[in-house]
């Protein structure tokens, strides 16, 4: 994008007598301009020129010191600055302004009679935005003032746009966090089923394509799922909301998981653009039958630790991703899940960040971290989380979700 208008066009605008042709837009004409010159006559002359260009909001200063005070107090949009002045000169004013982040972008037009290239270079080195030749020519002055005010105006609009975009993203991020279980809901699940749930959710952009959930199905069964949509960022996050409203509208009745997931997948397929899908693991834990029944849609292999398998084991999780085709079929798998069992689920950022060919984290490491192989004290979930963070340098390049569901041994909890 090019912010700078062709000078010829701006010149013709500025040369036109006031009122005859459209001058600068109203918002630009309302700009505050500070004129700094030690000679009263020059200040008066500049005032007349600027007023003839439609600028009424003018401020004046007689030397560099006063200029800095006025700039701090009034925050003008543009400064027309003389070089030779008592107390503080123009070059020093420029340097002082550029050293202050608040005024580093303030347009400063230096009036100078300097005609050697070396002198002009020095003016720019001090931080001036542009120059106007002395003696001042009104057309040139108005043209340059017009260009720089327009630039400033556009930069402002851009930064306002960015700020409002950031505000929106923050709102969306809060919404995204709210589609996952709250502390209160997790507390209620813990009360009802004795299951303790720990989780970590982190997006690599402002928004992400991961989500997880856990909810009560009936007296004995707690449902759960973890999902990872293709891609990340805004598009992927929209898909998590789609999914959320889909499952909210079509609740699992607790009977036929295979048919239910096939239906969800078919619906997703019709909602998602071609090539977008989600990998997922979902199912329920039955506290009375002491089993977990789950459906895999190609999510990373969950890790199960139970009294029978103290060293843990990875559960198979191959299956068609949700929404990949209209006719995907799914197969329910069942494993024992007695008291004392834990299930660890994660999105593929854990094993794919940042280098897919040589991952920093792999299944061996997951097993080691979760079964006390790292000799770190604390809950296995906290151990693997800390270990992963230690090993990954810099920002994630995919969204990361980790969830651990633990049933206490009998008598505990």
């Amino acid at each position, binding site marked *: 994008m090019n912010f700078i208008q062709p000078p010829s066009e701006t010149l013709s605008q500025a040369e036109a007598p006031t009122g005859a042709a459209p001058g600068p837009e109203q918002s630009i004409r309302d700009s505050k301009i500070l004129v700094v010159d030690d000679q009263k006559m020059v200040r008066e002359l500049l005032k007349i020129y600027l007023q003839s260009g439609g600028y009424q909001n003018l401020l004046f200063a007689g030397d560099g010191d006063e200029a800095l005070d006025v700039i701090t107090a009034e925050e003008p949009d543009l400064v027309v600055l003389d070089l030779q002045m008592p107390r503080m000169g123009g070059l020093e004013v420029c340097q002082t302004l550029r050293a202050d982040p608040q005024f580093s972008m303030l347009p400063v037009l230096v009036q100078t009679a300097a005609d050697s290239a070396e002198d002009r270079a020095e003016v720019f080195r001090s931080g001036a935005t542009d120059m106007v030749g002395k003696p001042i020519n009104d057309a040139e002055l108005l043209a340059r003032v017009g260009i720089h005010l327009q630039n400033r105006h556009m930069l402002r609009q851009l930064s306002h746009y960015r700020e409002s975009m950031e505000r929106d993203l923050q709102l969306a991020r809060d919404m995204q966090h709210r589609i996952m279980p709250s502390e209160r809901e997790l507390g209620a699940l813990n009360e009802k089923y004795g299951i303790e749930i720990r989780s970590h959710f982190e997006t690599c952009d402002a928004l992400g394509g991961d989500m997880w959930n856990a909810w009560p199905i009936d007296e004995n069964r707690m449902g759960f799922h973890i999902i*990872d949509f*293709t*891609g990340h960022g805004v598009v992927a996050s929209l898909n998590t909301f789609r999914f959320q409203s889909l499952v909210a509208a079509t609740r699992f009745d607790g009977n036929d998981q295979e048919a239910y997931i096939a239906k969800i997948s078919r619906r997703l397929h019709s909602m998602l653009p*071609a*090539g*977008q*899908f989600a*990998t997922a693991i979902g199912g329920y834990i039955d506290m009375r039958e002491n089993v977990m029944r789950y459906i895999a849609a*190609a999510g990373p292999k969950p890790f199960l630790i139970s009294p029978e398998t103290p060293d843990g084991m990875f559960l198979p*999780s*191959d*299956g*068609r*991703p949700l929404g*990949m*085709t209209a006719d995907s079929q799914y197969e329910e798998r069942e494993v024992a899940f007695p008291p004392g069992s834990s299930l660890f689920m994660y999105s*593929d950022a854990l094993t*794919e960040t940042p280098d*897919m*060919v040589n991952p920093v984290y792999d299944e061996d490491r997951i097993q080691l971290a979760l079964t006390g192989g790292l000799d770190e004290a604390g809950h296995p979930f906290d151990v693997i989380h800390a270990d992963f963070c230690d090993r990954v340098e810099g920002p994630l390049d995919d969204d990361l979700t980790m969830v651990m569901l633990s049933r206490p041994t009998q008598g505990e909890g």
Partner: protein
Amino acid sequence: MSNAVNVHGDHVEITLSGELTFSSYKEFQEVMKSATDAGKKSCIIDLSALQSIDSAGIGMLLFANDETKQTNIDLSLRGPQGPVKTVLEHTKINEVIPIVA
């Protein structure tokens, strides 16, 4: 990712190497276009030199499958190795796009 497109008799063959990820999207689209423009009735994507694929890469293969179906071209994949083979098996892509020897 890098690629080569060759025409052999009645089919067109695409060889992919490197990584098939989100950043290969544009290149992959162009390759698929030149392959379908060749006007042959089948198209084979050779994956034996492909080192890795992510979910966006899987998405692109599915997208290519949709596109070729619409123009009545038979699409198949050939020779996935290592991590690529694992991912294709895990996501059961072979049930959607045939994998030939």
